[in-house]
């Protein structure tokens, strides 16, 4: 018999009635592998089966892990998967994360045996891999309006770090090594701050103006001969286009700084505007966002970086180029840019993700990419017009930030889970109180957006008591995150030793 509380059901919500899978065994949800079995294997000549090919002093004594059959594992992981919500489960309007439906065929092309090659293979023997990389570099360059692209960064934040390192190398090369500040708007993604700091820069935080955009006076005050770069996303995290971008670029360039484009919001602009045309010198592409490659529960992604000609000599090594060896069949080779910063990944980044991104872009072409942006913007505007929460900043593009007002945005999010939708990003950016940062993307149709709006509105009408008790239809009920941080238990071994203490 279900232990779920049916009493609070709102008739409006019945249309999205949702119950997530839940397994309970011995009072716990799906047991850990270690609770199903633990088998200790002794290693070395003196213990157990013996016959180790190595002397005892070079080996461990034993290894203790679960030893389960394939059917047991298939059921374990199937059950775990059923206790996860993905974009294939329903809408996922996480602002700034751009959770789009991922076409299935890209998995098949990434799984081609010819995609699985060792990174130390000779260039001659991996012409296909190099050609695909070359073509993807070319696609990305055209889409971003950039002259040269590296595919090496394995994630967006890694791309930011490349941008920062390239900027540092460029300034050093120009005899401007004294520049030690990177300017970042307060509303920027946390990675911008962290990447600049990892690159050794002092971070200068830039406030927004009343309209939610870059405050030009504050920018003027922040810029100096110490400015290495300004990191900006456009549209910004409120979904607002920085209309003064030309002036911003001029101001940054006037003091000798570089303009960095955070590609997290590129899905709003495909075919409409290009960072290169706006005056950006260096940018990263979140191919796992803009080009619908699956996020995999938190990666792998890929964060290719594009630059203008002037910065190309500083890109990571190696890059791919045509070698012009034969007219009939083009050949490709790796090369090190003249003043390369070296590597930011052991090899060439997350190759399989790049294959998926290439396939996605090749499938959509110019019209498909532009249409994706058009409908992403239409969807955001439509959804915002349908919800009862206030949206203080506009006109926005692909995402908007609503305010939960008197309600706690985190509680609103928990309650939305009960309506079978993933909630928006909450409590960020901080300029909007109790922010609900919402990005439906182009993959939702009107009916889904209407259901999503119904979920928002149902929650908007609910009292704090209901919100604080949520969620109740998900696998787990509200989780105590404070105690998880106060007494960290990060492995099954930690849980076991805790049991020993009792």
């Amino acid at each position, binding site marked *: 018999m279900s232990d779920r509380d049916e009493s609070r059901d709102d008739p409006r919500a019945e249309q999205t009635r949702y119950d997530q899978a839940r397994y309970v065994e011995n*009072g716990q949800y799906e047991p850990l592998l*270690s609770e199903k079995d633990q*088998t200790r294997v002794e290693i070395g000549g003196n213990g157990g089966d013996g016959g180790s090919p*190595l002397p005892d002093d*070079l080996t*461990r004594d034993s290894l203790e892990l679960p030893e389960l059959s*394939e059917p047991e*594992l298939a059921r374990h*992981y199937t059950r775990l*998967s059923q*206790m*996860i919500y993905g*974009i294939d489960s329903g809408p996922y309007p996480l602002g700034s994360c751009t959770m789009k*439906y*991922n076409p299935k065929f890209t998995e*098949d*092309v990434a799984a081609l045996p*010819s*995609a699985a090659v060792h*990174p130390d293979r*000779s260039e001659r023997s*991996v012409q*296909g*891999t190099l*050609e695909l990389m070359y*073509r993807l570099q070319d696609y990305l360059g055209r889409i971003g309006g950039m002259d040269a692209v590296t595919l090496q960064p394995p994630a*967006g*934040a890694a791309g930011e770090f490349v941008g920062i*390192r390239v900027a540092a190398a460029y300034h050093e090369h120009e005899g401007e090594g004294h520049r030690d500040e990177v300017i970042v708007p307060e509303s920027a993604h*946390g990675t911008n701050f962290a*990447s600049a700091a990892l690159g050794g*820069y002092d971070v200068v935080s830039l406030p927004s103006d009343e309209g939610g955009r870059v405050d030009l006076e504050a920018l003027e005050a922040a810029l100096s001969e110490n400015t290495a770069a300004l990191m900006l996303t456009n549209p910004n995290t409120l979904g607002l*286009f920085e209309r003064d971008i030309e002036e911003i670029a001029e101001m940054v360039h006037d003091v000798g700084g570089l303009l960095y484009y955070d590609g997290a919001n590129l899905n709003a602009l495909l075919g409409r505007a290009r960072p290169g045309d706006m005056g950006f010198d260096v940018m990263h592409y979140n191919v796992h966002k803009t080009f619908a490659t699956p996020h*995999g*529960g*938190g*990666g*792998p992604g890929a964060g290719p970086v594009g630059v203008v000609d002037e910065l190309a000599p500083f890109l990571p090594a190696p890059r791919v180029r045509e070698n012009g060896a034969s007219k009939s069949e083009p050949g490709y080779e790796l090369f090190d840019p003249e003043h390369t910063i070296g*590597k930011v*990944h052991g090899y060439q980044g997350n190759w399989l*993700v790049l*294959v998926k991104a290439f396939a996605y872009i090749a499938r959509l*072409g110019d019209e498909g990419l532009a249409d*994706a942006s058009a409908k992403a*913007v*239409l969807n955001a505007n439509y959804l915002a*017009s349908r919800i009862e929460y206030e949206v203080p900043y506009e*006109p926005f*593009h692909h995402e908007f930030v609503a305010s939960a007002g008197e309600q706690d945005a985190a509680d609103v999010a*928990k309650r939305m889970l009960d309506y079978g939708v993933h909630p928006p990003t909450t409590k960020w950016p901080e300029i909007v109180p109790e922010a609900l940062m919402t990005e439906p993307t182009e993959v939702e149709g009107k009916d889904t*957006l209407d259901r999503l709006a119904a979920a928002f509105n149902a929650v908007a009408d609910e009292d704090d008591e209901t919100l604080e008790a949520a*969620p109740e239809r*998900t696998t787990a009920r*509200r989780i105590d995150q404070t105690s*998880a941080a106060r007494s*960290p*238990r*990060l492995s099954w071994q*930690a*849980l076991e030793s805790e049991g020993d203490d009792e």
Partner: protein
Amino acid sequence: MHGSDATGSPYAPHTDDERARMLEAVGAGSVDDLFDIPDAVEFDGEFGIDARSERETRRLVRTILGRNDDLTELLGRGHYGYYVPSLVDHLADRSEFLTSYTQYQPEISQGFLQALFEYQSLLVELTGLEVANCSMYDAATALGEAATLAERVRDTSGHRVLVPDLLLEGRRSTLENYVAGTDLAVDTYPTDDANVDLAALEELIDEECVMVYAENPTVRGTIEEGLESIGELAAERDALFALGTDPVALSLLQRPADVGADVVVGDASVLGLPTSYGMGLGLFATTEDYLRQVPGRLVGASEDATDRRAFTLTLQTREQHIRRERATSNICTNQAWVALRTAMHAAYLGPSGMVDLAERGVTRAEDLAERLDDLVGATAPVHDRHHLREFVIRVDQPAPAIADDLEKRGFAVHVVGDHELQVCVAGVPDERIDPFVAAFREVIR
């Protein structure tokens, strides 16, 4: 048919009628009215990328990648082509795993959080250290993060990181980039017959040193014999001992906790991923002492409102989305799905399967080295050590020419010196070993 344009995004489900009603609802005449982009920066050109059907796109990618030669790869040096069981592909490809985001809403993400918790637990057992994160990008970036952690936790003014002279160029270069924004500098210590030269290392470790890095097995496939001594040297000088290794090696070789390792890094995707042109899974484990300085995401156990055990991302105040420029790392999107695959592969093998896989890496490498050593014009292994998975061969003729000839016969090997090749048995099917030895015999004549 959805949409008016057959050439629009095939993944946007709007019909013309819906689009019209949505525009009406927002009070816009056209979608163009919704874009707030100044004319001066509007893009009116074309990318020049033709749209294709799904079938045509598949054919395009297949055709391009079809230009790759089909070779038997006897390649290793940190990246291994172990057979990945079908179970891993089929279950990891379940769309809830593949198409979910980072688990910021834990109540609706229990399955992935538990899988990552199990991955962390696997590494805790393998390393003997108390804390493992749920992924970095690859071995090189994990090494970079280890160095920045060492700088944070060491309260001396030290600034040196010591690495072996044999360190892979990709790892060295990535490490250099990671420390470029810090006060750290990377210095090299020598090796002796592909193991750490302990006497030289002792000379080099001083109060300035914040971290010593060693690998087991080494990049030349030798098993490091001086780990305990390195651990002692590092501890005496108050430097962290960072050990580079991988889950297969850890199944058999000395446990890092037993040799005094403070941090374990490396590539965990030796299990779970085929050779993927260098795509990886950065392993990162350390002791409880440095818990609050760990980079990356951590999954912890807690309880939900029904008092049942539940999992959640935890200690997020270390992370960039909260701590911004004071975060322990800039990492956000990591390699969660690869960690899932690695945990699945390890679970499939079980402890006996993992130990067996590692032991076969020793015996198969020994056997192949012996067979190559029997050939005139070749000496193997070059290093007088125990080996795991791979070893170096000395050849009388120039090594690059021999590698080229082998490639023409369908085999890929590393060139590691003018007269040195390196071969790896990991993932090479038994039935390809005889043809390889035969090809080798032919090309060294």
